[in-house]
């Protein structure tokens, strides 16, 4: 790996200013309505300095952090898919003219953007959505355009959340690739520094404009130790030694599906917050005169009844079958479809489940292994 550089908080502010000066939207974690979401920021002051999150099944709250870090928290309800795989998009519009219809494909456009604070699990999620939406015969041009015009500035996690299990999914907590820059925030009594790993020529071009110095061996080791501490303090884990894809495939009729259905509200929260869930549906709309039409695509969830609708009724009518579809897809059939698990261990589905269903606990129950 190339030499690690060190920048200060001023350097980070410089970076934000450079990105904005290039005409990019700068999107980063920021506090809104008592949660940390991803939104446009103007300066380093918009970052959640000194704020951390306490998460667990069905539970999320922000508290003052012991250290005044800019990135001393984990992931919130937003995922970057909000900006890459748009929640709602128009695919085409059409207008009746004479006896015919003029059909206009929606423009494929993207704003240049920079995402600051992308966690390792999120880099893994973006890589997964890349495979789903651009890796096959058909390419989602809307997604690809947005993806091609976003810089990814990663942050290595300085702490693990109560719902986190990326270490057991081998997706984190350290960013190992797929970023333009990766920051490790080091806060000591004396210093507030960011170690920077450069992951692309675009990242290098940015670094060339910011004052930085080479990292010392001590700083390098401190960053390593911080990541190791994060790994060791994960709130949760997928059970070790279990072949989860096979376990799911072998247990489609396991009684646990019925049991989890007594708790699951089929609310679709888990699919909305999941950084890899990609399902969409379309709505055709028209004006009152019936002369102008458009097709809109929006996120959909396999937890809705309509999702599997087949003339006359849904294929998956029971909550048990819909939960099974979600979990077996995420952990098992995804591997056959796209070559990796669909789960990155970010823990969002656990935190944002209103009844606190824990996917790692469900795997343990089906595997018949004890909770840790």
């Amino acid at each position, binding site marked *: 790996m190339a030499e690690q550089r060190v920048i200060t908080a001023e350097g980070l502010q410089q970076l934000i200013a450079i990105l904005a000066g290039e*005409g990019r939207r700068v999107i980063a974690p920021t506090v809104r309505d008592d949660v940390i979401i991803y939104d446009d920021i103007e300066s380093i002051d918009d970052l959640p300095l000194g704020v951390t999150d306490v998460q667990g099944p069905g539970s999320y709250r922000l508290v003052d952090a012991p250290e005044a870090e800019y990135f001393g928290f984990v992931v919130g309800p937003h995922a970057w898919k909000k900006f890459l795989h748009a929640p709602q998009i128009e*695919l*085409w519009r*059409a207008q*009746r003219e004479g*006896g*015919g*219809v003029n*059909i206009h*494909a929606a*423009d*494929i*456009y*993207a*704003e*240049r953007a920079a995402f600051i604070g992308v966690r390792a699990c999120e880099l893994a999620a973006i890589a997964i959505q890349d495979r*789903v*939406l651009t890796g*096959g*015969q*058909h*390419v*989602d*041009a809307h997604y*690809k*355009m947005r993806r091609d*015009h976003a810089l990814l500035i990663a942050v290595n996690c300085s702490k693990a959340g109560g719902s986190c299990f990326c270490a057991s999914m081998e997706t984190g907590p350290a960013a190992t690739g797929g970023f333009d820059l990766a920051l490790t925030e080091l806060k000591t009594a004396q210093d507030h520094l960011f170690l920077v790993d450069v992951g692309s020529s675009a990242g290098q071009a940015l670094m060339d404009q910011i004052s930085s110095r080479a990292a010392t061996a001590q700083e390098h080791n401190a960053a390593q130790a911080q990541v190791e501490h994060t790994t060791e303090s994960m709130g949760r884990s997928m059970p070790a030694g279990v072949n989860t894809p096979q376990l799911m495939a072998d247990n*489609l*009729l396991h009684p646990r599906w019925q049991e989890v259905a007594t708790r699951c509200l089929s609310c679709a929260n888990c699919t909305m917050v999941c950084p890899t869930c*990609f*399902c*969409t*549906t*379309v709505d*055709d*709309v*028209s004006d009152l005169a*019936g002369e102008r*039409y458009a*097709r809109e*695509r929006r996120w*959909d969830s*396999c937890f809705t009844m309509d*999702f*599997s609708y*087949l*003339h*006359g009724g849904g*294929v*998956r*009518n*029971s909550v048990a*079958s819909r939960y*099974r*579809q979600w979990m077996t*897809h995420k952990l*098992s*059939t995804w591997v*056959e*479809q796209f070559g990796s698990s669909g789960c990155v261990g970010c823990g969002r589905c656990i935190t944002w489940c209103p009844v606190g269903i824990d996917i790692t606990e469900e795997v343990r129950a089906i595997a018949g292994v004890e909770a840790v």
Partner: protein
Amino acid sequence: MALMSAHRLSTTSGCGVPADVPRLGYVRGRRSDAPGVWTLDIEMADDAPCDFAPGQFNMLTAFGVGEAAISISGAPGGERLIHTIRDVGPVSHALANLAPGDPIGVRGPFGVGWPMATPGSDVLIIAGGLGLAPLRPSIYDILARRDAFGAVTLLYGSRRPEDIVFHAEVEAWRREKKINIELTVDHAGVDWRGHVGVVTGLLPRVQLDPSRAIALLCGPEVMMRFVGAALTEQGLDATKIFVSMERNMKCAIGHCGHCQLGPTFICRDGPVFTYERMRPLMSVKEL
């Protein structure tokens, strides 16, 4: 600040148009093929229909109403696109009631169709209800080069005699004697002189040589489950039995997630699969 691309990326169907945007066509003919079943002849506005393989489907748009996956029921290589639609939901109702001259949106063709039978093989075609529609292009294909195959048999089950789609055409095939045809219905009055009973009941009438036969099945999933089981019971290998599956299709290119059945996307990996592939998936309720 916004970047635009003047040309689309490689998100195209086989026809060189964006896969998520329909092409314009016009309905040129509409006829009833059974109660509630309508066949549309569609002429594309710009050029000839895209080439398709028997068993593939298009996504048809009734402007302002919605889009539905409809299998192609006409012969490959024709000037017009032929689609047979059952008037059953809001979108199919709007599609089935389009009048000649009306515009219609067409995306496709999509999916994996029926396999090409090896020359010399026997072909057993088993259809139920509207399941004959996606098989009809294969039948045309077989009739066009009939000498390439051994025995060709069509077993077709319907609800009532009046629900037999393409009935006159089926009778014409029967008269030509190029393929053996057995029709059966679930319910019949005294006027019906054909078989009454389930389509599996016709299987003993077929001289099945498992070493040289392939079977193409399309109909309700329950029917295909039972026919698949009966054929394997008679010694036909599950890899030589093909089934055309149906699930909710929205995008038709494996991106929207709706049509998943286990690890498969029916739209992209199918709709035609081997019975060997589908058997374990069809047997799990609500999968």
